[in-house]
Every structure is written in C-alpha cells, then in structure tokens.
C-alpha cells in the first residue's frame, strides 16, 4: 500500500509543478486536455467500471453541457449563469438518459445510450437555430474565477487541475462509501442486492447522476478550452473514445481512467505530429493492451509488478539458502 501512496504523491507533485518542467506551451495545453478528458473518463468509469453499465452515449451529455455554455454566452448571459445552466442541463439530460436506459442492463443499456447519443448528435447537427449546425458555436473569452484571468496556458492548466483534483477526490470518497459499495454490489450480484434490501434501480440512478455531473464539468472545461463547440465533439467516435480510455486504463479502478485519458490524448495530439496514421497506432496499442493486460494498464502493471517483486523475493531467499548451505 505504501508504494501506492508514494506513486500518488509523486503524481501530485508532478502535476502541480508541470508548467515548470514541461517544454513549451503546447504541451501544457495538452496536459489541460488530458485533465478534462480524465474528468470525463472518471465520470464514465462510475457507470462502466463500478456500475457495470457501459454507456456509448456519454459524448452526447458532454456535448449538451458544452453547447449550453456556448449558447448562454452567445445570448449575452454571464459565465456563472452559463456554467450553472450547463450543469443543470447536463444533469437533467442524464436523468432522462437514466430513466430510459436503466430499463435494461448489459447490451440493452449500451444500445439505448448509443441511440440517445446519436439523437443528441443529430439535434446538434440539424437544429441550426440553436446549435449553429455544422458551424458550431464560437466562444469569446473565459471566465475569471475569483477575479483571476485564465487566458494563458498556465492559468487554464491550474484551473483545470484544481477541478480535476476535486473530482478525483470526490470519486475516491464515493468508491469507499456505502453507496459506492452498493453500486459495485449491483454490478456483481444485482439479484442478491435486491434480496438484501437495496433499491437497485435507485442506486444505479444516483450513480448515473454522479457520472452526469462529472461529464458536464468536463464538457464545460472542454468548451472553455477550445472556445468552440461543433457536432464533431459529440459524435459516436467521441463516445467510443472515452469508453476506450476507461477500458485501456482499467475499468473500475481509480487511476485507470486517468492513465487511459493520458494515453489517448498523447497519441491523438502529440504522436499524431510524427505519425500520420496515428489512429492505426492507437488501435494497435489497444489490441496490445487487450491481449497482454485485459484488465487494463493500471491493474495490469500492478499485477506484473507484484509478480516481479515476488520472483525477486523468491530468488533472494533461494540465494540466501544456498549461501547458508555452503557455509555450514
């Protein structure tokens, strides 16, 4: 366990000092992208990892929050109103998602969320009077939390980092709580949970709402980062990408979605500068992960680490034995 604490501490220090050792503004911006994608992935992981409910329509919710922010700003409302509308809109849409899709689990849940995501994509694309259609919505300026300008790469990075740390802490608290345990229980033995007195549907509904909140927060950060929102941000590829982040990193683990988000964003925005067919590379990486570490990068690495540790330990004790044997 102490190895875990050390790793978390090193990660925290690395994140806080990142602008000082990262070479160039571009990479600081990439780090901001990783952080809000990680919030998105953490949100999906609540459902896909801890609840066993894979959603293929989460980009739709992400998009609703982003569009709501853009729309309100376009119509002259201030940042606080825009952000609040985005949060409420995102959560309300999640509630509709949940009521419709929680009628099923497994493949049924995936298909309903997929359909809902596509409907929202279709609306974004066609409801031009509100969304601007293919042209999307342009934003002008970022909010000033507590009077602080966040227009530079560094300041936006730190804002995102603060939000990310709060989201991460919230998820960490949730998974240790009785409600978190109940959610994992409904994933593993829904029938037993019902027989033990739990309201399985309501537990899943609240998990959806938590997931929706994190997704909406990620959507707001995204739209302030890019200053632009178009239907492309909420198409099926975007939904699939966040599912891949969760699965590649390790579904149902705290750190998995963060590592997964880092992997996808780095390949997408950094490696793509060197390799034209970066999509193929990403595909190859996923195939490798699924074959070598089907449980995901984080739990897979932990497993290999323990294995190596045990082997080294066994080797050392054998050597000590041999020495003792020759000595006597």
């Amino acid at each position, binding site marked *: 366990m102490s190895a875990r604490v050390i790793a978390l501490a090193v990660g925290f220090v690395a994140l806080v000092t990142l602008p000082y050792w990262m070479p160039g503004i571009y990479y600081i911006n990439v780090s901001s992208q990783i952080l809000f994608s990680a919030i998105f992935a953490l949100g999906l992981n609540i459902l896909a990892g801890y609840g066993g409910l894979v959603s293929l329509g989460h980009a739709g919710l992400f998009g609703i929050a982003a569009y709501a922010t853009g729309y309100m700003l376009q119509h002259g409302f201030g940042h606080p109103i825009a952000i609040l509308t985005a949060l409420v809109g995102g959560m309300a849409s999640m509630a509709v998602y949940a009521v419709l899709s929680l009628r099923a689990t497994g493949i049924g849940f995936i298909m309903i969320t997929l359909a809902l995501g596509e409907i929202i994509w279709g609306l974004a694309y066609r409801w031009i009077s509100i969304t601007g259609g293919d042209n999307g919505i342009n934003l002008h300026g970022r909010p000033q939390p507590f009077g602080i300008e966040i227009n530079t790469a560094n300041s936006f990075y730190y804002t995102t980092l603060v939000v990310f740390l709060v989201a991460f802490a919230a998820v960490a608290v949730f998974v240790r709580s009785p409600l978190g345990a109940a959610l994992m229980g409904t994933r593993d033995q829904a029938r*037993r949970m019902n027989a033990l007195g739990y309201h399985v549907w309501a537990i899943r509904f609240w998990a959806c709402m938590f997931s929706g909140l994190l997704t909406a927060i990620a959507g707001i950060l995204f739209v302030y980062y890019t200053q632009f929102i178009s239907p492309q941000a909420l198409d099926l590829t975007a939904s699939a990408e966040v599912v891949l982040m969760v699965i590649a990193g390790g579904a149902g683990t705290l750190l998995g979605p963060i590592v997964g988000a880092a992997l996808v964003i780095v390949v997408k925005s950094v490696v793509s500068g060197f390799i034209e067919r970066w999509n193929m590379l990403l595909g190859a990486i996923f195939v490798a992960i699924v074959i070598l570490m089907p449980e995901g990068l984080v739990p897979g690495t932990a497993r290999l680490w323990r294995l190596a540790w045990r082997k080294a330990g066994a080797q050392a004790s054998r050597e000590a034995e041999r020495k003792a044997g020759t000595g006597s």
Partner: protein
Amino acid sequence: MSALTVNALCKAFGGLHVTTDVNLNVEPGERRLIIGPNGAGKTTLFNLITGELMPDSGSIQLFGHDITRVPSRRRPHMSMARTYQIITLFPNDTIIHNVSLALLGLSPMRWNPLIDMKRQGHIVEQAHEALKRVGLSHLAERPLGETSYGERRRVEIAMALAQNPKVLLLDEPFAGLSIDERRDVHQLLLAIPRDVTMVMIEHNMDVALEFAERITLLHFGEVIVEGTRAEVVADPRTREVYLGH
C-alpha cells in the same frame, strides 16, 4: 398469529403450472422442512415468498401483514431473509465486506456517498459478530474468491443472520457439502434461537429430518402431504413420490 402464511398461491410460466394452490402455515419459532423431487417447485415457492416472482393469484402474509404486493427489496426490511441454493455472493470482496453489505442493506446509511464504509465501527462489529456465529471470524479479511465451498455456504448463512430476521428461508443449505461440513452447518442451524422461524428446502433427508418439526411435501407444484415428521415419513404418498412405488 402465524409467522408466515401462504394462501392458495398459484404461479404458471405459460402452460407450466409451477405452483398450484399452495397453502402453508408456519408458526412463530417453527422449523419447517419443504421436500420434494427435482422440479417440484420448491425454489419457485421461495421466490414467490420473497417476492422475486409475483404470484398469479393467492396471497402471502408475514406476521399477519399482507405482503403479496410488497416489492421484494422491502421484504428484508420486514424481517425476512433468505439464502440461495446457488451461491450468490460478491466474489471480488472480502468475507467481512460481504456480511457488511448485508448489514448496510437494512441501514439508512446505505445511501451515504461520503463516509468510509470500513470505518463504521458498529457495522464492522456486527459483521464480526455474525461471522463468529458461523465460525468464520478468523477469515474475515480473506477475499471470498480464496475460500472453500463450505466456507461460502456459511457466509451465505452469516449474511442472512446478520440481518436479524424473524423468518429465515434456507434454500438447500447443505447442497454440495462434505459430511464434516454438513455437520458443522447443522450444528450452526440448531444453535439459531427460537425467535427465528425457519423454513428450509433440503434434499438431504438424514440431516434435514432431524432439523424439522413439520414437513411439507411438494410435487409438481402441489402440496401432497403435510404433517409432523413421523406422519410424513410414514405416509405412503411420500414413498410413492420419492421411490416411485
């Protein structure tokens, strides 16, 4: 007042009548055994009583309250607990986590997303208490995946007991156990105080007969014979159903 009353209960899956006009009356503190060949509808009857299946007609009463339409998730809150024939536990978690889930199921704390479950002293204490009753407190921190089949059976019982039920439904608690394990579980069931009413489905006659005061024999979804241990064993219809002559 009876602990559990089942009146004219019927259930059919399409044309298959799995429960036909079943009446059952279990007195408080009674030990009732339900026997019958495979496919007699014993587990279906349990699923109807616990509400996992809705009956087509008939009613179920728990201490005089009609619970026929009460959702199954509410029934544990009304002092009814069950175990499963096919072990239905949480394989990725420790034994104590399994029992803690059973305890939290009846506590309003189950909705709390903010507190640390492992630090809730009284839950941990009660979970240890329940594990002690089934002789597993020394294995509390062991992941369920690393326990033996017999230990899992006892975890099943510990989870039911942890909920402090007034009516306990045991679905083949001896299934798949070795002779030694069977004796342990038997001792454990005998030690349960009389304020718990127990209804047990069991194939294994030698242990089960010793346990029960009254026996109900089901066959093709119907109650064929009901009576004291001696009456049912002596009844020719029991021989017919079990031995075919």
